[in-house]
């Protein structure tokens, strides 16, 4: 970015809520059913139907409000957003406008230069999703109403984000929180998490906002970053060339890495919001709110701090382990069976996450139970097996969630720590490799590695490496002194 300018970015995030039924009717929210099968007269917008609010939606949105430090309004009101589109059966979307359920919150993000930034959340409100229009069938547009009425929560940030990176971090934090709360699966590619960005630029130090544009259709985290950077550069180019930024809505095209104008300000909809007379205001009372607060899980930042404190982990480890709640839960289960907190962290951050990544699996489907991973860590810690043996048997554990102790026993892999046994092996190796001994004595200390390798080979890796090392040095040094 040209250093003269700064960008002002606000995000509108739509999160599909994981309720089993729709927000205003009893239809299923299940994704991927045959088109137009999750429908009823209500979500089809037939004459005479009325919406009835699914209370779960209020609960989920309130949880999000609490998790993002919002004020929960004791009274909020549903409003109609009026516009015509074939996948909007009633000709209006039920949303919230003047009185949303949550307002005035914030979340904190940490930028790559370790700067902590508080990003304001203007509001969070409840609304219904529209259907899907399918345009790629020749001349016809088909409409699938299954998604109509699936509950959405819209989270609107203050225009306080300054870079695409911050927008990315903010969005990641939102996703992390909704996943922690279990209220949205946070999948941008499948559209259960969607993001629109409002972007303007101004000269650094200016207090007046520039003309903003809105970018839609950024359906991955990577695209959010790319599209925002694209738009910032485009606006700077315009201004640098003495052209004006036009207020408009742009659609991001991920294939072309370019944004295209969708509609200008003049073509913008006048949504004619007004309170929906079919729904009563939503009243949130203190007792209910207290119960919801009590059900709030430990949030990622707090969990991270606790991991540092309780398990004496580096912040880096705690950050990774608390990235997702299932991983944090897995870690805590492992350390409930072992007190080697750091090894548990290393195993999970290393081998476990690597395998999950390779196999595109989530940790609840990981085949090694926390008990067995802890058992493996304890076997190393007690000296019963070496780290190398542990790595060797890990694939076997993975294949069938088998107890590592059982594998060690079956394969006779217990580490040899008996000094006499190791001494005998060392003696044999030294006497059968006089040339290497000679090299060592002449000052080539590197051959130590050769001898360790031989010892391990001869003991099938079972020799306790510390003891073997110690004995080897003692023997060689006594030869040196002779």
């Amino acid at each position, binding site marked *: 970015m040209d250093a003269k300018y700064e960008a002002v970015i606000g995000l509108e995030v739509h999160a599909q809520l994981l309720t089993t039924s729709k927000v205003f009717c009893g239809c299923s929210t299940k994704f991927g059913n045959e088109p137009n099968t999750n429908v009823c007269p209500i979500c089809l917008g037939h*004459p*005479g139907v*009325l919406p009835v609010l699914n209370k779960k939606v209020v609960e989920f949105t309130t949880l999000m409000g609490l998790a993002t430090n919002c004020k929960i309004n004791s009274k909020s009101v549903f409003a*109609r957003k009026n516009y*015509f589109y074939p996948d909007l059966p009633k*000709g*209006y979307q039920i949303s919230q406008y003047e009185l949303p359920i949550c307002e005035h919150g914030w979340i904190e993000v940490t930028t790559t230069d370790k700067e902590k930034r508080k990003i304001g959340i203007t509001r969070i409100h409840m609304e219904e999703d529209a259907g899907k229009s399918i345009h790629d069938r020749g001349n016809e*547009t088909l409409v699938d109403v299954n998604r109509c009425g699936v509950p959405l929560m819209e989270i609107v940030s203050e225009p306080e984000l300054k870079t695409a990176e911050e927008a990315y971090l903010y969005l990641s934090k939102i996703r992390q929180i909704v996943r922690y709360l279990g209220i949205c699966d946070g999948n941008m590619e499948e559209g259960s998490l969607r993001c629109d960005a409002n972007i303007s630029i101004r000269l650094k130090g200016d207090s007046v906002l520039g003309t903003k544009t809105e970018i839609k259709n950024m359906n991955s985290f990577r695209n959010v970053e790319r599209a925002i950077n694209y738009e910032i550069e485009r606006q700077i180019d315009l201004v640098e060339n003495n052209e004006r930024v036009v207020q408009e809505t742009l659609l991001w095209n991920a294939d072309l890495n370019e944004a295209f104008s969708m509609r200008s300000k003049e073509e913008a909809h006048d949504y004619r919001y007004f309170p929906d*007379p079919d*729904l009563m205001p939503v009243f949130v009372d203190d007792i209910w709110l207290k119960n919801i607060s009590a059900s709030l899980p430990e949030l990622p930042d707090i969990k991270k701090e606790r991991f540092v404190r309780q398990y004496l982990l580096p912040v880096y480890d705690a950050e990774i382990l608390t990235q997702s709640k299932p991983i944090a839960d897995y870690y805590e289960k492992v350390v409930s069976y072992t007190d080697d907190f750091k090894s548990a962290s290393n195993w999970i951050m290393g081998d476990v996450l690597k395998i999950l990544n390779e196999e595109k699996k989530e940790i609840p489907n990981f085949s090694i139970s926390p008990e067995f991973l802890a058992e493996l860590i304890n076997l190393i810690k007690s000296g019963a097996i070496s780290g190398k043996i542990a790595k060797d048997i890990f694939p076997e554990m993975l294949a069938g969630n088998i107890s590592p102790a059982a594998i060690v026993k079956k394969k006779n892999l217990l580490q040899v720590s008996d000094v006499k046994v190791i001494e005998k092996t060392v003696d044999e190796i030294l006497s059968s490799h006089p040339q290497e001994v000679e090299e060592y004595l002449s000052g080539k200390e590197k051959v130590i590695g050769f001898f360790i390798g031989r010892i391990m080979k001869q003991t099938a890796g079972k020799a306790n490496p510390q003891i073997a090392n110690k004995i080897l040095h003692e023997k060689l040094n006594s030869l040196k002194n002779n």
Partner: protein
Amino acid sequence: MISYSNNFDKIEKVRRGELSLRSNLEYFLKKIEAKKNLNAFNFIFNEDVLSIADSVESKIKSGSYGKLAGMVIAVKDVLAIKNKPLTCSSKILQEFRSIYTATVIQKLIDEDAIIIGKTNCDEFAMGSSNENSAFGNVLNPVDESRVPGGSSGGSAVAVAGGLCDASLGTDTGGSIRQPASFCGVFGLKPTYGRVSRFGLTAFASSFDSIGAFTNNVTDVAAILEVISGKDENDSTSSNKDVPAYSKEINNHFSPVVGIPKEYFSEGLSVEVKNAIENFIEQLKENNITVKEISLPNTEYTIAAYYILTTAEASSNLARYDGARYGYRSQDSSTLLQMYNNSRSEALGSEVKRRIMLGTYVLSSGYYDAYYRKAQKARRIIKNDFDEAFTQVDLILTPTSPTVAFKIGEKSSDPLEMYLSDIYTTSANLAGIPGINIPAAKDKDGLPIGIQLLSPQFAELNLLKFSYFIEKNLLNK
């Protein structure tokens, strides 16, 4: 035809074998056919009703039957009945059939009422004369050159013309009370929220009430008792207890009756005025306390009413766009053209006028000046009533400023037409119940109605007093 004074009497006569429900239905069907020129019905359920009549009759004879057993009811064609047409008297829904049943209809059926057909009305219940139906005018049976009132004109005519025992209508600004007044029958609009709106095609959601037309107070009480109550499908329905209206209407109730002076100023025809004043004298003679009251903000009712109802209507009617069901214009090449053509071709001019008005008052830049201000006016109008009801139990007004007018007389002047609802819209703004009582006739025999209003959920008082009037004051 064996006559009966109300449905309880009818049940008794059926039970005793003096009246056959099948022949009763055949009588009505024949009469509907004979009076086809009134154009009261959009659809008649000939194929269904006779066998239903037989089964209800055997239920009555077995001694186990519903509260409305055998009552023959016509319903306004804005109410949904599964697998039956639901047109709202509009071309845009001409071919539409509902895939579910309205709560009120289900409640009637569950109490063994017999639904005989669907009645004509103003398109989407917008109108005061039934001249806005895509299926033609409805004629007033008292004088066929006159309108029956609207928008529930067909329902009023079905009862006034003796084509059924009772009918359901809907009342957004007087659409039950005004046609009841024009046709000379009882017409009750309950408290907003008393009766579920689920299955009622919305015109103005925060105003629409479902009510009934009958020839007597007992039947309207019985119907209200059945159709009232909380409905899980309607969040705006009330969970207040439903009194046993039909059993309690003959309990003594001597109300203080308020006469709002603002309802007797210019615009009220002399004949109606005289008739009402005459009626008030009769009340006094019967030792009813009558006192003048004031509803000071009455002048804002029509404006507030038309701003708010058209705003809601503009949104409620957006779904009729030709995209998913209903009429679709065939010659359109773009989506916008399809919307424009479908709606232009299939919606009537009054409906279009109100959609445009409503769209305008909600538009950005105009919302505060119109919609928000009208909401404020609605609150002060409601406060007027709250205040008045601290002094009186019931309020008595003319139902309409005139008797039924001639067909075509006002159809060229929408504003003039809107003024025929001047005394009825306030009840919908305030959400209170009101009833039309066929109290008098003018020199030509045209009915003149009085309107009684009560506080919210005080329908029992309204019905008790109506029953008292019916028994003591009306010239049978």
